[in-house]
């Protein structure tokens, strides 16, 4: 069974197409310059509709996380980490930490991570994160 992915809506299409093309798009307001996520056609700080998309740096740190031990029918195995990642741009979002053993000994709060991509089915790619340091313990 394939993992259940997002069902894209008109307001999020540009974001998810970006992800398929290897880009994580954030937005900012042309009026008040605030950066925001998830994607919208207006700025949630000032309500202005004049917004801009740009590719995020893809750099961030692990803000917090849990390691799920209960099976989820569409996921191949557990335990797996669900994390809040804080991007360099100040945005926090939910993602996974991959290419590292899924244990609290290896995954650390504050650990620098970088964007990578996981293809879960034809046409569906997810933005996930991996440790920046190739020599980090537990890297696989």
């Amino acid at each position, binding site marked *: 069974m394939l*993992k*259940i*992915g*997002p*069902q*894209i*809506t008109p307001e*999020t299409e540009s974001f*998810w197409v970006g992800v398929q093309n290897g880009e994580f798009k954030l937005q900012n307001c042309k009026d008040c310059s605030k950066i925001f996520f*998830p994607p919208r056609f207006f700025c949630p700080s000032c309500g202005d509709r004049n917004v801009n998309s740009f590719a995020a740096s893809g750099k961030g740190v692990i*803000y*917090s*996380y*849990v*390691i*799920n*031990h*209960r099976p*989820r029918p569409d*996921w191949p195995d557990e*335990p*797996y980490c*669900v*994390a*809040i990642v804080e991007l360099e741009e100040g945005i*926090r*979002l*939910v*993602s*996974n930490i991959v290419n590292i053993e899924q244990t*609290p000994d290896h995954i650390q*709060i504050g650990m620098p991570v970088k964007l990578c991509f996981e293809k*879960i089915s034809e046409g569906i790619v*997810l933005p*996930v994160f991996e440790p920046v340091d190739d020599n980090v313990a537990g890297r696989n």
Partner: protein
Amino acid sequence: MRKPLAAIVGAAESTKIGLVPDMSSLGLHADAALNALRDAGLKPHDIDGIACTDANPADVAFYLGIKPDWMDGTNVGGCAPILHLQNAVAAIAAGYCKTVLITHGESGRSRQGAQLRIPNPSDLNGQFDFPFGYNGAITSFTLPAMRYMKECGVSEEKLAKVAVVSREWSAKNSRAFARDPITIDQVLESRMIAYPFRKLMCCLVTDGGGAFIVTSVDRAKDFPKPPVYVQGCASAAESYFTGPAYVGDPLYPELIRRAGKNVFQAAGLKNSDIDHAMIYDAFVHTPLWALEGLGFVKFGEAADFIWDGNTAPNGSLPMNSTGGGLSYTHTGHYGMFAVLESIRQLRGEAEAQVPGVQTSLAFAYGNVLSAVGATILSNVGE
């Protein structure tokens, strides 16, 4: 204390709670409603306003034989009954209705006629959280906890203590689902659910219903039971369904602080005026956020406050005197049971009665950390 806004004149849980396989969610709504009506000395036709959690209020009204002039189906999760109360106060003041029935019924454990909870892959949660392995509240409500523990120096032992204290209360409640005393070691040796949360750090999954009846202060003394007065209500939202990542400060959430400020302001009271509190304990860390956000303690101090026995029986702030969602009951949307215990304490009807309670604060979360509701109730009145 300001003049009360309204009065609660009837309240009850479903006849059975915990494991109730012989009743559907709708049946639990109706059973609790009939018990609350009897408690208030009313018949269904005396009700002219209705609000329900986890059900369409028109459905519940039809089922009970009520023809409401006003209804509210605000559905923001576990805190919804407090929002219904807030809305009922306003509706009664506006003259839309006189006597409001607020119900909850949820076959959370037996899943008899329970609402389907299928994630919608196209909503915000479905696009931006669920694809990353969300597996119920245990993987969303808990997300900021590790960071909180690290920044505030809260050990797993201190988190475990919250569960231990909840059993000190539930042992005194004959209707509680889990009543055996537990130790910190037992909590920390229980099965891992989502690190660092173990089974005994998570709420129960039960069946149950609850209902209460709200009317104006001037009618309150016409009912058989002493009235419980509504001194203040507040609600607040900050993020989308299950989205703690998008709360401005996930460690000291602004929506809790805002609801706390507004509910105390509405009541004209301060933290030290509160004799008893019911604080939604979906997991062991959720009362910490609320004790701090509502101003009972400073940021980072709640775990020590609980560790030192302040919220336990005979403590300075008796909290979750049923055993709460961790040990008493948790149908999925727990808020109703918090409000009902506040009412019982103020009536002097609680099984673990706290002596001399004049004010009680009930606080609940909704859809993880997306919404909250708070109310301050009293038995003093004008």
